[in-house]
């Protein structure tokens, strides 16, 4: 009988085998169905294995393979934390494969996707399983490169090549930071096994450096502001099922890396560390959702919203660090549970929303919301599940997004018990930022749903949209039901997460699933409790009462008539609320400062028949100030160094000679 970790590795090997098979089959007609079908089966098996390991709570399970560095080998380990993230990865992978069974048929060049899709999943699985720094970094790079290849699938479309380039740059920067972090962790002895790193004490200065490097390394992959710039470019560029995996799952693998190093390997934290994580998370949440609000490309909007959710997760992690530093382990486990719960939730609803955006893209060919509208009549099932995704991500009950954000605010409310005044003041401020982000997220998804699915079609393509195939619908329906399930039975999820907090913080929330009427009481009854079932029943009853009342007191006859056009008899669909006009009030409030937004009105003189023009100018200040300057500096430096590229032969020899003599001189003077 295989051990649990060996079984997971067999699944990974199977995924790699499918990747090789996909290369061989790439020109065959049945390749799409075959590859995605096989990936679906393998991911489902891996999911079952991960869930069994998580729920059985049998402790860590290790294996050493004789590959990799000769003196180290490749260590793999399956503990509760890894099992949870494996479950997230493989759930996302399985459902994305199911979706791709239908969606993948529309791919023009399947040979560009098929080999890399299973390889990408294998990479993510391996990162989570890795138990030494070398395997970790190797698998991390493998994951990055596989996802880069997927981003470059449609490399001839405008902007995608640049997206791939920026992604590659940021990924290598992130890996560099991780490399340095592991170098510091391994210490002068250079023992790269995680077990040895865990056992070693780490000096405070070193621990702070590692934390900063992890924020840079894992943060750049997860999309922390200001390292997020690649994410809204790269995630939408990939095919939609891959976008869902990148946004819903790969960012979570980065979160896993952060938790593994900062909570597990680094030992007890310092409370100042949490300040950095909290503030970065808060800024990321608000900036991410503001970017999303100003966006009119549906997939880019979703990618920006991923940044917001990553911010929320990092705030939870920062809270957990703050509580843990003060030995308030119950509160810390509440914050960590909120973070992990949100990781799970976000992987569900962000995949769902990307699938929905992919369905819209397939049936209309448009990502730009200015060309959508009225899809609720033509794609009824997609509209319902997309609505569920929107409601869940906007953190409205009875769906799962509400539960995790509620848990997070419960943790925020525990902050007065922290002894440090800095944290006492800061945490409520971060909580206010999160409340702002939650409200803006609701506005953002009202915009996304309202403009795309309601209103009248804004283009011919949207008017002629068709419902998508059954595989895609099945994948979305499964995700929507999981969102509802996790919202109504949050106690089950919290209980499943308790082995993880037990492992990392040595503390767990009380068991929830035996509480009457499916309530959850994370800390104490008087602190607050939530009952998803009650909320659902209340919503159902009040909605049916309202429906009955309307049906009772109004006319039964359905009349179809022209919409009132404000006096303009022939309003064109473009005159409806557009994504830009919906966001205008919020843009005026926040945009002037954060995006240097300027509105220009160009009014023709009286008597002229030219149309008046209104234009908005928005600057991405992060991109222009930070990255613009870095790019400028690199440009200048490379121009200066360019002269050294084309020397004469004697010039090169002299250069070598001069370098040698200089080094010798340095040695002679210093030694």
């Amino acid at each position, binding site marked *: 009988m295989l051990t649990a970790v060996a079984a997971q590795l067999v699944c990974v090997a199977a995924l790699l085998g499918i990747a090789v098979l996909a290369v061989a089959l790439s020109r065959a007609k049945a390749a799409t169905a075959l590859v995605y079908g096989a990936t679906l089966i393998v991911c489902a098996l891996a999911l079952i294995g991960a869930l069994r390991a998580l729920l059985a709570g049998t402790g860590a399970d290790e294996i050493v393979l004789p590959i990799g560095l000769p003196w180290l080998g490749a260590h793999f380990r399956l503990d509760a934390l890894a099992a949870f993230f494996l479950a997230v990865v493989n759930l996302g992978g399985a459902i994305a494969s199911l979706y791709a069974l239908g969606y993948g048929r529309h791919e023009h060049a399947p040979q560009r996707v098929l080999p890399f899709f299973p390889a990408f999943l294998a990479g993510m699985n391996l990162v989570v399983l890795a138990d030494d720094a070398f395997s970790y970094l190797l698998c991390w790079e493998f994951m990055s490169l596989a996802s880069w290849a997927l981003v470059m699938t449609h490399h001839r479309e405008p902007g995608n090549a640049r997206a791939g380039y920026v992604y590659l740059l940021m990924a290598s920067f992130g890996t560099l930071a991780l490399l340095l972090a592991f170098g510091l962790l391994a210490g002068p002895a250079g023992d790269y096994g995680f077990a040895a790193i865990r056992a070693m004490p780490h000096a405070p200065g070193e621990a702070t450096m590692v934390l900063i490097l992890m924020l840079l390394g894992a943060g750049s992959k997860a999309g922390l502001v200001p390292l997020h710039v690649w994410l809204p470019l790269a995630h939408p560029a990939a095919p939609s099922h891959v976008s869902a995996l990148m946004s819903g799952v790969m960012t979570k693998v980065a979160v896993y890396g952060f938790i593994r190093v900062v909570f597990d390997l680094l030992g007890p934290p310092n409370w100042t560390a949490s300040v950095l994580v909290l503030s970065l998370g808060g800024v990321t949440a608000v900036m991410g959702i503001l970017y999303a609000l100003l966006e009119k490309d549906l997939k880019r909007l979703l990618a920006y919203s991923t940044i917001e959710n990553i911010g929320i997760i990092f705030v939870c992690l920062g809270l957990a660090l703050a509580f843990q530093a003060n030995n308030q382990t119950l509160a810390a486990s509440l914050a960590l549970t909120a973070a992990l719960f949100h990781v799970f939730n976000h992987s569900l609803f962000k995949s769902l929303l990307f699938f929905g955006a992919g369905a819209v893209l397939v049936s209309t060919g448009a990502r730009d919301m200015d060309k959508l509208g009225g899809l609720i009549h033509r794609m009824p099932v997609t509209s319902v599940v997309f609505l569920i995704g929107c409601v869940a991500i906007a953190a409205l009950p009875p769906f799962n997004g509400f539960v995790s954000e509620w848990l997070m605010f419960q943790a925020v409310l525990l902050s007065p018990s922290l002894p440090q005044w800095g944290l006492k003041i800061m945490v409520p401020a971060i909580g206010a930022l999160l409340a702002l982000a939650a409200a803006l997220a609701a506005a953002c998804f009202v915009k996304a749903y309202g403009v795309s699915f309601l209103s009248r079609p804004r283009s011919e393509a949207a008017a002629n949209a068709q419902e998508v195939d059954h595989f895609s619908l099945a994948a979305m329906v499964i995700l929507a039901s999981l969102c509802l399930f996790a919202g109504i039975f949050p106690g089950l999820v919290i209980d499943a997460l308790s082995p993880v907090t037990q492992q990392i913080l040595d503390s767990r929330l009380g068991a929830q699933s035996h509480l009457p009427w499916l309530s959850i009481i994370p800390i104490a009854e008087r602190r607050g409790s939530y009952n998803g079932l009650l909320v659902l029943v209340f919503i159902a009853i009040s909605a049916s009462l309202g429906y009955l009342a309307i049906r009772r007191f109004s006319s039964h006859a359905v009349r179809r008539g022209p919409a009132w056009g404000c006096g303009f008899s022939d309003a064109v669909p473009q005159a409806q609320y557009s994504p830009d006009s919906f966001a205008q009030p919020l843009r005026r409030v926040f945009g002037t400062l954060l995006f240097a937004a300027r509105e220009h009105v160009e009014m023709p003189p009286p008597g002229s028949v030219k149309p008046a023009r209104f234009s908005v100018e928005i600057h991405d200040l992060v991109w222009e100030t930070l990255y613009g300057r870095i790019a400028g500096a690199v440009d200048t430096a490379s121009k200066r160094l360019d002269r050294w590229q*084309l020397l*004469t*032969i*004697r010039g090169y*020899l*002299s250069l*070598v*000679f001069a370098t*040698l*003599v200089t080094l*010798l*001189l340095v*040695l*002679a003077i210093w*030694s």
Partner: protein
Amino acid sequence: MHSLDFDISHSLAGGLVLISFMMLYQDRLYSLLNVFALHAVTLSLAVTWQAFIQDAPHLYVTAAIALVFKAIIIPVALHRIIRQLGIHRDIETAVGIGPTMLAGMGLVALSMVLMLRVTAEADALAREDLAFALSVVLLGLLVMVTRRNAVSQVVGFMSLENGLVLAATGAKGMPLVVEISVAFSILIAFIVIGIFLFRIRERFDSVDVAALDESRGERR
């Protein structure tokens, strides 16, 4: 103490440095080749002496290789090449002799200072040897840098390699296989460079490396 051993090896290595200096001011190709042959002969003498005092018979092989290849085959072959290319009347004018000699002295001083300081624990013989060897290497590089003719750059390269062999034999316990492989790699480098010389010549009617730069479209 083997004071005589020390003195002889010291004077042989010092002679090598001196001959390196002689290379710096040769402006005729034939005389440069002759000096190079002398360099190689001195090297083989130094290595033979090392073999004798270290009681290491394999160093005799090294000395024989140095004598046969570097003192006979390569100079003779280069002589032929120069005759075939018809450049035996060329005069080198890259950098003036005075500055070159001054630079050479500076390099020797540098390597002395450096080597005597970093090898404080090694025995006196190895220290001196290493310091001289580094001087020879640096002077070889200086020859390569200050010459414009490809043939004399080859000679500079070969004399640089002589310095490496001197260092290798001064350090006790260097296996023979390393020295033989170094010698053969030098021979192969010589063959490749020789072929290149003819190719360059075919193409540009000159072995002045400046012609290569012009062909890349660069102005000087």
